[in-house]
């Protein structure tokens, strides 16, 4: 069984028998951990599935880190409560959010009259991404008892989100239709 354990550990970016560096809390009885690298990969997989299936769009991961600051943005957050959980957020510019909402609703950006409809659509994209992320996390850590929250969506100009959690975070910037969309996962303490 050693090689299966090695495969599992390699996938998680860890060494056998040692907890992952910068990883989140050990959850299962078998000391399963998920590293930052692994969670980034899962976020990319989950978001790719959502964008491809619901929006017919492919995402491209930005290799050079975060894009320039998004001044006027829409931010959707959803928490995965429970030991080993965290909060997944998605942020993009208002223009990008409107375009994504239009794509989701198979209409044009101009036909979406209400900002509330844009927020609802972006909240749903975050919800589906978090749902898939949870599925993969629970598959990797069968003892994790994670619960999805209802999404919260915030819009505004030039604001900064400060995390009070000391659990660390992972940022996954991607491009959709040549516009940046930033996913972030903040680990619970």
């Amino acid at each position, binding site marked *: *069984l050693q090689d*299966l354990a090695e495969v*599992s550990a390699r996938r998680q970016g860890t060494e056998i028998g040692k907890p992952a560096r910068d990883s989140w809390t050990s959850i299962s009885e078998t000391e399963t951990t998920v590293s930052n690298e692994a969670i980034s990969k899962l976020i990319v997989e989950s978001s790719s599935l959502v964008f491809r*299936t619901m929006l017919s769009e492919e995402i491209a991961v930005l290799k050079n880190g975060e894009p320039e600051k998004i001044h006027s943005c829409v931010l959707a957050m959803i928490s995965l409560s429970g030991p080993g959980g965290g909060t997944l957020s998605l942020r993009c510019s208002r223009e990008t959010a409107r375009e994504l*909402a239009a794509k989701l609703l198979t209409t044009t950006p101009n036909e979406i009259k209400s900002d509330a409809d844009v927020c*609802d659509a972006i909240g749903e994209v975050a919800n*589906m991404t978090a*749902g*898939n992320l949870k*599925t993969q996390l629970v598959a990797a850590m069968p003892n994790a008892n994670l619960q999805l929250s209802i999404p919260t969506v915030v819009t505004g100009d030039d604001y900064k989100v400060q995390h009070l959690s000391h659990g660390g975070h992972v940022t996954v910037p991607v491009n959709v239709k040549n516009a940046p969309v930033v996913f972030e996962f903040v680990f619970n303490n």
Partner: protein
Amino acid sequence: MAKKVLTVDDSKTMRSIVKKQIMTLGYDALEAADGAEGLQVAAAEKPDLILLDVTMPVMDGRQALIKLRQQPETAKIPVIMVTAEAAKATVVEIIKAGVSDYIVKPFSEAALGEKINKVLKANSAAAEKIDVVVVDSNGNNFSIIQGALQAEHAVHLATTGEQALDKIMTHRPRLILIDIGMPDTIRLQVVDKLKTADLLPRCKLVALCNKNSIDEVGRASQKGFTGVLLKPFQGEEARTLINNILQTQTQFACRKGDIFVLHYPTKDEVVLFSVFRQLLQGWQQWLGHLAAGGHTKVVIDIAQAATIGIDDLRFFRELAGKASELGIGIVFVVGEPKSFELRHFWESGVARSTATLEEAKKFFQQ
């Protein structure tokens, strides 16, 4: 008059997407923004189908489903649960709650349309009342099955082999449940009668087995049953499993020539998981049965499996090793390995794996 489909979701976006698909399919679309509102609309409009989101404020999908089933006017409306997560525990919970089907977000319009049509069609067929025969000397099992199915199906009891043959000719059933504890000659007579009446292709056989008897489940797996219902069972459990079996073409265990084939349940057959796991958990006895029955060639088809984890793979390797000691060859059909673990299983050669059932058969012919 067009059928009415109600979508209950707190997301206006999702309601809009689902409503559009409902109307494209030619049905009337109704909507509600949470479970409480969904109950009101369901009671007032009596829709033919409800699409119910799991996670919602005010009243979530689980609570709403319980209330729907408690109200006589909405108790029999089929429900498709809509969920953002496909974790095994969540899916099993949804299935057990008594829904007709579930769909995981994100989904394509085509997938949603297929689910809606499938459930509406199944419900129309159920309205015609499918005949089910229970061959069982124990009246308690019959009472539970009849109680669970009587709204959708006509259930008939046969306590002897003679009665069973009579009921088959009278009712031409689509499903026969046979207590595995009854003499095997009855099962053989039933199968013969179905063959001569040309009913075998459309009639499915389900074995009633004791939950704690690996022996009974093992025997059922070798006798060509389409499924297994484990005793003791709750009415809802029986209803879900039986309706699932009526809608699926898969046989969980069958013989193809001299090869014994086990199909790992797909994501649409979650109710078969417990049976499959029970069978495999008692694998030592199961292998003993196979060896005693002269089976030396076994194929375990995991290509369409809903979930395969590291524990499963560890177990498969152990199973293959033990089988080899008993002179039984096991080949795993893994299809195009989708997960990392499955790819590793395929590449490592720890157990014989092929891409298709045909390749597995060829392997045994060599």
